[in-house]
């Protein structure tokens, strides 16, 4: 589908579909994404309070420790995997589910995202994931980004019995931004297209049954190389410092940035990209990573979001099966 003659820059971070190998090599692709909430969302592990962390940011005179809200790594993989599986059910004739013991271990999604075990007794397989997600941190402090909403479910009878129907879960506010990197290792260009397609098309994250949590994923760039790019935590800190240092935003200190009522996703996107590329630069320890040109990313994304996706997945499916079959001779 995507040959290296046309897309030479992919050669650094991907493997050709016919050369997928069981032994890991050092082909890394990082997808830089800014996740923007377009509605309220719930990211919690206990059903009530939002996941928080405490992060120190800044240096010298202007240092703060703030409490960002978290989008746990699992909140991202869970939703993306469900979406990937449903894409496959639509486009290929694949019956694969997210049931813990019901993964088919034979489709593009299973083979890319991994599957530790299935209940198929004559096929003892464990497939390691080649897509890696990390916990994402809000730019703003939890006091600004998270709101407790009072919920009551009183029913509609005229005469009610006294029942406790009140909950106050933590909601992330619309407009909250999460700088995120998705890392692929030893993936084929087709698999990269698949992940890009999922990232562009998937718009719901967080508590799955809550009918909310709409997210817009801005893809800011794709980077390939022989090692990983920077991590979400460092990038989030960098963006906060850049927002403080910008004259036009009117923030004088880190405190202003993390308690602001809103940030412009366009501007944050530019800063996030700049922060990622600065960390690639040699002065910052240096990473063997290069940016993939915009046209290539657009081609991949177009293939993954349009009618071509069925063909992309179909050709990848053959390669994925061969890849797993390599272990059968052992």
């Amino acid at each position, binding site marked *: 589908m995507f040959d290296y003659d046309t897309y030479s820059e992919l050669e650094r971070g991907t493997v050709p579909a016919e050369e997928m190998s069981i032994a890991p090599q050092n082909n890394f692709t990082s997808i830089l994404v800014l996740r923007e909430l377009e509605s309220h969302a719930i990211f919690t592990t206990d059903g009530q309070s939002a996941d928080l962390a405490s*992060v120190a940011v800044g240096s010298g005179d202007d240092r703060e420790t703030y409490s960002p809200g978290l989008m746990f*790594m699992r909140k991202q993989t869970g939703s993306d995997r469900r979406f990937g599986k449903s894409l496959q059910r639509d486009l290929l004739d694949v019956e694969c589910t*997210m049931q813990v013991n019901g993964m088919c271990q034979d489709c593009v999604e299973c083979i890319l995202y991994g599957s530790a075990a299935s209940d198929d007794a004559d096929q003892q397989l464990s*497939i390691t994931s080649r897509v890696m997600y990390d*916990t994402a941190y809000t730019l703003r402090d939890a006091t600004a980004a998270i709101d407790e909403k009072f919920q009551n479910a009183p029913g509609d009878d005229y005469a009610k019995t006294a029942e406790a129907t009140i909950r106050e879960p933590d909601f992330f506010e619309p407009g909250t931004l999460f700088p995120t990197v998705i890392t692929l290792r030893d993936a084929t260009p087709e698999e990269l297209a698949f992940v890009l397609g999922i990232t562009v098309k998937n718009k719901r994250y967080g508590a799955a049954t809550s009918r909310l949590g709409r997210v817009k994923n801005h893809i800011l760039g794709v980077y390939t190389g022989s090692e990983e790019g920077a*991590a979400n935590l460092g990038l989030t800190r960098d963006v906060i410092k850049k927002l403080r240092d910008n004259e036009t935003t009117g923030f004088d200190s880190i405190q202003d940035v993390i308690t602001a009522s809103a940030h412009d996703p366009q501007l944050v996107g530019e800063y996030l990209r700049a922060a990622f590329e600065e960390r690639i630069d040699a002065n910052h320890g240096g990473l063997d990573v290069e940016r993939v040109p915009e046209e290539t990313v657009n081609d991949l994304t177009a293939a993954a979001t349009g009618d071509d996706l069925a063909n992309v997945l179909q050709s990848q499916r053959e390669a994925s099966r061969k890849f*797993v079959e390599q*272990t059968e001779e052992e």
Partner: protein
Amino acid sequence: MDSALEVTLRTQGEIWLASREVGRLADTEPYFLNTALYYAFGLASGRYVDRLFEPTYLDDTAAVADEIYVTPAAPASTSDEGVANWITSTYNTSSDDYAAINYSAQNDPDAKKNLPSYGRRRVLGHGNELRCYVLGRGISARELEAEIPGYVRLGKKRGKAKVETERRSVDTETGQYELGHPIGAYDTEQTPTGNLLTKRMRPTPLVVQGSYEGEYVELSDLAEDSETDEKDDSPVKFPADVRFLRSKR
């Protein structure tokens, strides 16, 4: 030993491994064994698809074990547990079907299987520092540095850590010494003479501290300033014969 690096691993998010499973709680010990670090640093490569379900540490590291020894990583600070930030969270594994039957415990057809459903895990959060040492035989510190990537992935769900390296000078001595940093229990032929503290980990136990007698290597800060003659007052010491899974080869 000809060269040595002190490596600091700074966690960038959750990193966890199931060191202990107590009912529905999985707990993480703040140590990364060298069985994991060889793979994380890219010195050995595993397999994406596994049918054997047997560890292959010896084969995977055969090419580098003589040249490079990686110690297990332990918390860099010695206060309380040595780790500043733990996170305990709940997980659940729901399917993506629109309708699913909620079986009662008596009627659940999967009750007999050990399937993950929900539980809690205590994990290393971000901002923790762990330290390990990379020792080279017949390889220069610069070559060692070139082998170590800027970021690595560790643990069950491939959590991310930032890697920082610093060179250390290496001296070989003989006599009584205290082990300065945990090593794998199978990594040396020397027998501790006392003061022994081990930690049970899977797949290999750790020797956390111990007194030894014999040939050892001493890692100290690179003393740039020879006039003040400031010696590192607590150099880290390892058995001179230390090698990954030495007694298993």
